[in-house]
């Protein structure tokens, strides 16, 4: 049985009306396609005319996001200043295929503090601002004191990155944790969250700020430093891009640091330039991580301060002045 009054059953005249409307729409569509084709033809003609003044001299250039492109020399325009951060894009992507890792051998650290100096120079830091700091540690009253260089642990489960409200600090696929001081709002939640006290803040105008005015910001070096933003150890991301070892690793006179790629299972000592197997180094020397119980999964390993060939000395360096 069919209900004649159901609104879903159109009568004949309605069907006719619908079909004539469909025809109209079809015609309109055809007309539209025609107009669009004509316009496209005119436009491409115009482009062809415009393209006539080419020199034929093709240049190969590197774009800001790291792609190689070919451009006609006449189309190259010099820019006064980009105003765009260096490595803005690939600084977030990291170096493909790498998993950077650091090993710090505590049995060799004599608190020479060369790593600290070179780091502070590279990153335009004040004397009290440390990406890398050498701490004088003593785990229990009965155990021996030792020097422990401490930098950002570049955690694989970084508490700082989790709490950042604006994606200013981020974890790269190659393991490095960076900070973008063009993005940082200065809330310092990351400092509160970091159990390693690895982060510093630019409380006042950074060191020699006037000298670096107008310099493009490089996210892989975090310079120029900017007042009101966070700074931290970057595993020398700028050096890694050049295929070099980090500043601190290379500056150490005592062979404390190894640095390398976990994927290759190889780390290189910054002083001796000797390359060894990462897994073997950690296994043979009892490698460990700082506070692994917190679940942060650090990318910095430590070798215990055993068999030291020198006595522990209280640090004599002067405490930096009040800021």
């Amino acid at each position: 049985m069919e209900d004649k009054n159901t609104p879903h059953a159109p009568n004949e005249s309605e069907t006719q009306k619908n079909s004539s409307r469909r025809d109209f729409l079809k015609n309109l569509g055809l007309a539209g396609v025609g107009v669009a084709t004509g316009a496209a033809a005119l436009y491409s003609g115009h482009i062809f005319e415009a393209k006539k003044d080419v020199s034929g001299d093709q240049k190969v250039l590197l774009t800001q996001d790291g792609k190689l492109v070919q451009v006609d020399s006449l189309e190259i325009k010099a820019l006064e200043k980009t105003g765009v951060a260096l490595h803005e894009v690939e600084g977030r992507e990291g170096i493909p295929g790498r998993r950077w890792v650091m090993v710090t051998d505590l049995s060799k650290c004599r608190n020479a503090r060369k790593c600290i100096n070179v780091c502070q120079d590279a990153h335009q830091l004040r004397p009290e601002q440390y990406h890398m700091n050498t701490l004088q540690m003593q785990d229990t009253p009965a155990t021996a004191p030792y020097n422990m260089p401490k930098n950002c642990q570049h955690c694989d489960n970084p508490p700082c990155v989790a709490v950042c409200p604006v994606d200013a600090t981020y974890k790269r696929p190659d393991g490095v944790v960076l900070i973008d001081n063009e993005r940082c709002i200065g809330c310092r939640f990351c400092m509160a969250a970091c159990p390693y006290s690895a982060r510093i803040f630019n409380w006042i105008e950074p060191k020699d700020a006037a000298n670096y005015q107008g310099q493009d910001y490089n996210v892989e070096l975090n310079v120029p430093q900017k007042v009101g933003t966070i700074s931290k150890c970057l595993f020398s991301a700028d050096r890694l891009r050049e295929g070099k070892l980090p500043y601190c690793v290379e500056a150490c006179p005592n062979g404390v640091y190894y640095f390398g790629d976990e994927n290759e299972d190889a780390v290189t000592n910054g002083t001796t330039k000797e390359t060894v197997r990462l897994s073997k180094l950690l296994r043979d020397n009892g490698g460990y991580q700082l506070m692994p119980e917190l679940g942060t999964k650090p990318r910095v390993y430590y070798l215990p301060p055993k068999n030291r060939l020198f006595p522990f000395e209280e640090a004599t360096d002067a405490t930096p002045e009040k800021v």
Partner: protein
Amino acid sequence: MTMDDNKLTFDKITSDLTHHIRINKGFLIWMGFLTISLLICLYAYSLQLSKGLGVAGIRDYVTWGMYLANFVFFVAASLIGMLISAVLGLIGMKWLTPITRIAETIAVAFAAVAGLVIVSDMGRPERLAYVFLYGRPQSPILWDVTVITTYFVLSLLLLFLPLIADMAIIHRKVSTLPSWLKPVYKVLSLNFTDHPEQNKIINRAIRILLILLIPAALSIHTVTSWLFAVTSRAGWDSTIFGPYFVSGAFVAGSAAVIIAMFFFRKNYKLQDYLTDMHFNNMGKVLATVSLVYLYFNINEFLVPGYKLKRADAVHLHELFVGKDAILFWIVQIGGLILPILFMLFRRFRKPLPIMLISIAVLMAAWVKRYLIVVPTQEHPFLPIQHVPQNFVHYSPTLIETLISIAPFILVLIIITLISKFFPVIPLHETAREKGIEHIKFD
């Protein structure tokens, strides 16, 4: 009751509750004082804007200082709107009627200022919009921004809806009203004529708001506690931080309401409406929430104190017998245990003593926030070495103190303005409860 009696009573109520709505000398002097004080504090903030956060005493280890303690305190005090109006109101406690607007005013003022306070703690306040442009939902800061905004809007609506009827009455019935205010009230009264249908809509809207207010209020302070509890630091790494903060918030808020009640009653001559009974009952509320807070305090300190894990041991040692011990015990004994003991006795729940107790409780509440925020950062997991002495121990600077005072002045300004230009005690509702069924509007 005859019509004449009715009229008399209503006129009396109207005049009692609205006679303060006029600009007098006392008001101008008070506002002038607040404005000048605020300008001084704003000058301090302009110094911070030009020189950076370094003008404050906070440094790399104690990176959150008075500003953040302030923020937690303001969020805490704003929670009282939920306790008084929503929780107790929905249960049906009739004696609350004259207190609801005071509680809502405090909620609106503190919630609004809490949003501003947090900007004073930003290294780059001009990038505030980034929180919305690049916001990451993983960050508790984003949750905080969301829930505080929600709570503020809900509280503002809850303050406004019962005011519609009051403003309709005022712009028609109050002859002493300043002439420039009349049209303002007329617009804000939204053509209210006390029609039963209008009352039904307003009452239903208020009821919905009250119900929504409970989860929103619980969220704002729970999320604020999570700013600390999501880290692994000793003193913050706690699973009961949410309820610990919420119960502490009720203590601070109840105290703020009692203080406000006392001064409104005195300055606006509301003795017939805010009676000893109200102070007595609010004293009982404050005692109850203080007992709940005491219970959470015992949990928060006794359990880690029993185990004494290495980092907890250092933290608790500083609080119990170390550097922060004096402040800690003043707050716990003077701001919590003694007030509870006093409030058990009826004679301490009279207006003056309960107001004095509330001042002690409120001041202790602020110091408690300071003790939650600062000491934890003074002993991180790894030693603090090779940095200047002022990095090791936090001491606030003068500029920082002035900037921290500014939000208190702002709250006083907001509360003063709201209470000055609107009836402190709900007029329409009070008339209803005194048996006046329908108000004639012509």
